[in-house]
């Protein structure tokens, strides 16, 4: 898909449902500085979804889709879990993998895209839950990183298997008692960000999704670094409000409480040296571009 192809045949325009007309006219495909601030003023790339009211994962989904640098040239790979309820409503190409296979699928996909579209930028983004990323799919996750596959892995960490009623997962915190894990977690939460760093990821961030501007920044960085250098990993806390006994309105506070400096979701970032250099160059170019466009706007006004 390219943004030039996202146009409706003129003879069929009047019969197309309004959400498709909106996608063509008001979505942010191809916009250079797209970001979370577009939400509410443009057509989002997510239609109605069937997640629970107040689910932080739905917020995370919206921020991520708003922040992808080139959604028209991105393929997302999902896995079994709550995310698979949302992907059918998303206007970005996506593939549902077998439970845990997502990074293996993404590896093949990324390679196939570079053969099929040489010279074109095609981003691949894996989006899966903690069960798929850390438990069932850990082998595929790690092997993709070892091989330096050039795509981003995003893990929605809700610290348990929410979709099936609350079983223990590797990312669950020690001592936590879930509905279907009554004894309580006996072991520490797996330190996947550190494992990702040691496995060769160039950009690793762990945070909550309480701040949309932060999500925009890390998603953009992760995708752009993966495009140029190699694997990147984001671990985003998206608590399952139902499984931890919270109400719909309490998701945001739960994330704010968990991201305090002493808490388990305190902001954590590992950036490789080449990635640091790349991001610095990118920031300089961005600054230059913005200054130039500001100058241009100023001169147009004067004229």
């Amino acid at each position, binding site marked *: 898909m390219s943004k030039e192809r996202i146009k409706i045949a003129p003879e069929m325009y009047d019969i197309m449902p309004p959400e498709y007309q909106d996608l063509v006219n008001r979505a942010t495909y191809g916009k250079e500085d797209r970001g979370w601030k577009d939400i509410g003023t443009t057509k989002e790339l997510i239609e109605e979804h*069937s997640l629970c009211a107040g689910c932080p994962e739905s917020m995370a989904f919206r921020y991520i889709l708003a922040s992808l640098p080139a959604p028209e040239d991105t393929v997302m790979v999902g896995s079994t879990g709550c995310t698979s309820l949302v992907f059918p409503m998303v206007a970005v190409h996506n593939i549902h993998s077998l439970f845990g296979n997502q990074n293996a699928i993404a590896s093949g996909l990324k390679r196939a895209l570079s053969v099929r579209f040489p010279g074109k930028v095609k981003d691949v983004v894996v989006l899966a839950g903690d069960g798929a990323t850390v438990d069932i799919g850990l082998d595929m996750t790690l092997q993709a990183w070892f091989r330096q596959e050039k795509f981003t892995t995003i893990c929605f960490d809700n610290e348990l298997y929410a979709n099936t009623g609350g079983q223990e997962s590797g990312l669950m915190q020690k001592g936590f008692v879930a509905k279907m894990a009554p004894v309580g977690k006996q072991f520490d939460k797996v330190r996947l960000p550190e494992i990702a760093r040691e496995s060769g990821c160039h950009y690793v961030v762990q945070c909550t999704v309480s701040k949309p501007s932060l999500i925009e920044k890390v998603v953009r960085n992760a995708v752009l670094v993966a495009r140029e250098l190699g694997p990147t990993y984001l671990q985003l806390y998206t608590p399952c409000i139902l499984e931890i006994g919270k109400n719909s309105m309490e998701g945001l506070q739960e994330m704010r409480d968990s991201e305090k400096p002493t808490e388990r979701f305190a902001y954590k970032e590992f950036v490789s040296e080449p990635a640091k250099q790349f991001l610095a160059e990118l920031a300089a170019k961005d600054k230059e571009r913005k200054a130039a466009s500001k100058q241009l706007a100023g001169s147009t006004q004067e004229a």
Partner: protein
Amino acid sequence: MTQYRVLPGPEHFLPPAAASMGIRLPNPGEAHINGVIVPEEQAYEEAARQFLMAKVPTIFPGPLVLWAWNEKAAKKATAIRHLYETIKECVTPQQQAMLIPMPDYRPKYPKINPEVEINPNHPNLTIWHNKIDACMFVGVHCHQANLSLKIIRGGTSCYTIAMCAQAGHEDAMMSFRDATAEKIMKLADTIKRLKGSVKFDPKKR
């Protein structure tokens, strides 16, 4: 030769794939009607008759023609619109021609508006809601068309026609193959020619 015939349903909840019952696809220049291979010319006449006899003759254009992703697609879209206008012009006031899009294949849960679109994962909703008794699929990717055509045969009494750009569909009651804008225009011409010679009987439908 197989005795199985691909007929309007409802066949049952999970109808067999017609191919598994021995129905084969037509060769170039041919079509099939109810699973019997016929010359393409015969299929134009039968498709025209089905549209003229139906109470709600409907065309379901899919993503391959709804989106102007190349010149060919845009040309087909023009031909489909012409076909729709022709059907509208040729049917009686008691009949209602419809053009309902299948914009993409996302399983649109929790809500789909069956009045304005059809979804391949539950096409029966659109057919039931609009009381469609004859329809034509065009510009739908084959794997999704196969799925939809089977669901329609399983749960509705709608007569299905596939205007397929590839090798055709066994699961439709009638299938063309190698569809082009010219073939769609030819079908429109046939409908025009047969106008008045085919009687619409509301009691039969």
